[in-house]
């Protein structure tokens, strides 16, 4: 259902008021870099339903294929806010500390998938040894692949990793440059639909619980808390709508990702998105950091203090019960 005329009008008025009055509203619109992932659904919905405008936010939204790239846009100063999976945040934390995590907006165990070509002789995880596996470095897909392998007793170093990007991953598979691909949605779906006969999704009982997070420039923390609160409040509304009117949210998802209903049914999460900021995130970041150090993906020998990478104040103000961190 499209936004009602009244809602559009109210949003416009709020926008104008925000612009004219200034005050707590940022004078210049903020830019949010959004990963092109189904997990960004709350942001898509909030945008489609004009929740940001209703909250008096002047928000510009730009897209990037991955959260890692979103963080890079932020690092380049092209965005004030970004969405990224925990793995991307973890890798980014080894390079800079000018950002903070405001909240996890989604968590799932089924976003990242391992697609294999049975034709390449892959039946079990062990069969992956020596095979060419495409993986987007610095993303959740990379951690997912290593964890999957190690859990199943396969040394990641025994594989031939092939760095790919979401944009070319399917093509590389189709061109037989890869025997397997560790990838997240919606690329996984694209690959399966492109090569339905050739690809199999390796069974996985939830190798890791991935979180999808909202990240802000550190300079906003404290200085722009009111804006961040409005942002979170808009997302909270969006999450309520996804929970209460899934069909409407699915329509948003279809139009935003240019996908069909089959895809939506494929990726539609078992668990509704939920804002949170818990110790689990800190632990997850630290564990992944230890993994990155252990596996030699980063040069540093110690993990950063991730307490310094979270800023729970806005979420606590919006939804106190969603914050599991001690004050």
């Amino acid at each position: 259902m499209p936004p009602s005329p009244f809602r559009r009008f109210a949003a416009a008025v709020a926008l104008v008021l925000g612009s004219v009055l200034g005050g707590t509203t940022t004078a210049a619109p903020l830019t949010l870099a959004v990963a092109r992932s189904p997990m960004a659904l709350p942001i898509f919905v909030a945008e489609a339903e004009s929740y940001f405008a209703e909250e008096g936010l002047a928000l510009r939204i730009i897209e990037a294929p991955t959260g890692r790239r979103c963080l890079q846009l932020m690092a380049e100063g092209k965005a004030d806010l970004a969405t990224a999976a925990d793995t991307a945040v973890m890798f980014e934390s080894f390079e800079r500390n000018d950002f903070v995590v405001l909240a996890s907006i989604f968590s799932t165990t089924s976003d990242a998938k391992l697609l294999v070509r049975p034709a390449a002789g892959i039946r079990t995880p062990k069969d992956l040894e020596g095979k060419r596996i495409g993986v987007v470095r610095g993303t959740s897909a990379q951690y997912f692949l290593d964890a999957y392998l190690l859990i199943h007793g396969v040394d990641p170093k025994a594989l031939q990793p092939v760095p790919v990007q979401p944009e070319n991953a399917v093509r590389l598979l189709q061109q037989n440059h890869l025997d397997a691909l560790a990838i997240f949605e919606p690329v996984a779906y694209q690959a399966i639909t492109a090569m339905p006969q050739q690809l199999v999704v390796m069974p996985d009982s939830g190798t890791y619980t991935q979180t999808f997070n909202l990240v802000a420039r550190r300079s906003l923390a404290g200085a722009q808390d009111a804006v961040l609160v409005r942002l979170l409040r808009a997302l909270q509304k969006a999450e309520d709508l996804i929970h209460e009117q899934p069909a409407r949210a699915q329509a948003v998802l279809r139009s935003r990702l240019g996908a069909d209903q089959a895809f939506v049914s494929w990726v539609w999460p078992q668990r509704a998105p939920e804002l949170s900021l818990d110790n689990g995130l800190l632990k997850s970041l630290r564990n992944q950091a230890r993994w990155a150090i252990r596996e030699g993906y980063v040069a540093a020998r110690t993990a950063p203090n991730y307490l310094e990478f979270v800023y729970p104040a806005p979420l606590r103000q919006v939804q106190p019960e969603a914050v599991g961190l001690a004050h």
Partner: protein
Amino acid sequence: MKIRTQLLAAALIALVVGLAACVSIWHAAAQEDAAEQQQQQAQAVARELSGLLALTHDFARERDPQSEQQWRQRQTAVSLALTAHDSVVLDSTEIRALRDGAARLTLLFDRLADLPPADESALVARRRELLVDQLLTDTQGMADSAYRWAREASLMRSESELRHKRITLLAMALLMLLIAGQAALGFRRVLAPLRALSVATEALERGDLGARIGNTRSDELGSLSRRFDAMAQALSERTTQLEAAERRIRAIADNVPAGVVHVDGEQRLQFANAEFCRSMGLPIERLLSLSMRELLGEQDYERSRGPIEAALRGQAVSFESAPTRFSRPRYFYNQLVPDLGADGRVAGAYALVQDITERKLAEMEQAAAKRRLRDITDSLPALISYIGSDERLQFANGTFKTWMGLEPAQCIGKPLIEIIGPELYAQRKPYLDQALRGERVSFELESTALEVHRHLKNEYIPDVQKDGSVAGIYALSSDVTAMKLVEQHLAQLARIDTLTGLPNRREFDERLAAAMSRARRSRRLLALLFLDLDRFKQINDTFGHAVGDEVLKIFGHRLLTCVRETDTVARLAGDEFMVVLEGLNTPAEPQLVAGKIIEAMSRPFDIEDRAMTVSTSIGIAVYEGNAETPEALTARADGALYEAKRAGRNTYRDAEALTA
């Protein structure tokens, strides 16, 4: 709308609202309970997961069977806590995710436990680290979810509590509002009309018959009000009629020449007409507040109390009273009639009080007069009676009983013939008829009653009415027996007949005896003449005793003129006369004298301007000096008189000649 409909609707709404409120409150309470349960469950799960986190650290450090067993036990506890209830806070998918997470933990733990402890190759160490990290991260993530769940449950519980309170308050407010609304509506629709009705009824009670409500509503009270108005109108009309009727009754009552009153069951005066007020000398206002005791006074009330109470018991009673409150004696005739209500019970009594003082006094005067008269008549030595024209006795005094042996009262109204018997009646009948023809009759007669012989002097006086008719006769009978006896005795004692002045029988007897003695001594003849008036009874009967007596007087006087001075003329009785002739020379000489007497009597008797013819018969006996007795001589003369009568009267006969 009818009030009944409104009340029903109000009751229905109240029921619906009450039920809805109950359901809402119950629902809110149920939600609150459920939220509380969720909170407890979430807290329990979170606690177990925190414990599991610590045990994961223990196992990673110790890697011994005890810590493994502890971990597995705790993991089971987590799974159990998660299966305890279905959550209303989290989606079932969330619960399922937690359960899946718990299952995955076991999977990861199994892999960790399966790692060969002895083999400390680089890969095994990397795997161990990753698995431990993964376990810790997942456990932490689950614990975070559980804690968040607990916080959300807590929040929901607070919200439920708040909602519960609000619903309860709202329900109460709604019900109070409903009650207030109904009360307001009730006041407007019920109490206000009722107050109007109450005001109108009070006005009516005060006597304001013009009181009306004028409610035009179509509900029950409206119709009741209209009925009240109609009733008040009818009452007003009835009251007007009643007042008119009462005025008429009062006018009638006031014009009745007797007191008319009404008392209630408490003997309080409720009504009194003008006559009663006048006779009591009190205004109606004073009278109507009085009880009979107060009105009559203690003494008079006690006398009248019996009849009054009898009337109040339902009896019609009448009595005379003589109240002592008046300065002069007054008498009243009181008629009491019970006032029976519609239910047949005595509600009071009506009294008609007639002033009978004048009549009473007249009656008393009459009775006294009558008593005096009777006392007088009873003490008279005469029988006084009144006999009606129908010959029935109407009055007789006390003497009647003495003479007749009959109570006068028992004989009043009876025919005279029955009372005195046919014999005495026959004696009186001629005089009775005469008197009833209007003549006053005086007569004497002798009659015997109760074996007592009386000589009565009677006087019958006709009771002549104005129209000339005779209503009856007053009869006065005096007993003159004693007087007659005295008279007779005196006559016997006397020697001269009082009527004629001639010697009577006593004198004659002595003189005859003396004359016969002398004749014997002188030897001279003596003649006795026995005279009798012819048909004297006829004279008496025809002309009365007075005329008869006059005839006897003239007869005696003429006799004296026919004899010598020495001769004796005497009257024996009635019309019997004797003449004694002495010193006769010849026996024929008496015949000369007899002829002379007859001659003398042949002249008419002038009595009361009437010339009456009277004759006499004479018997002659001559005494010649022998032993003949006076009685024998008289008998011979009587025999000669008899002969003269036989010879046709107005003649004489000589006894000598007869014997010869």
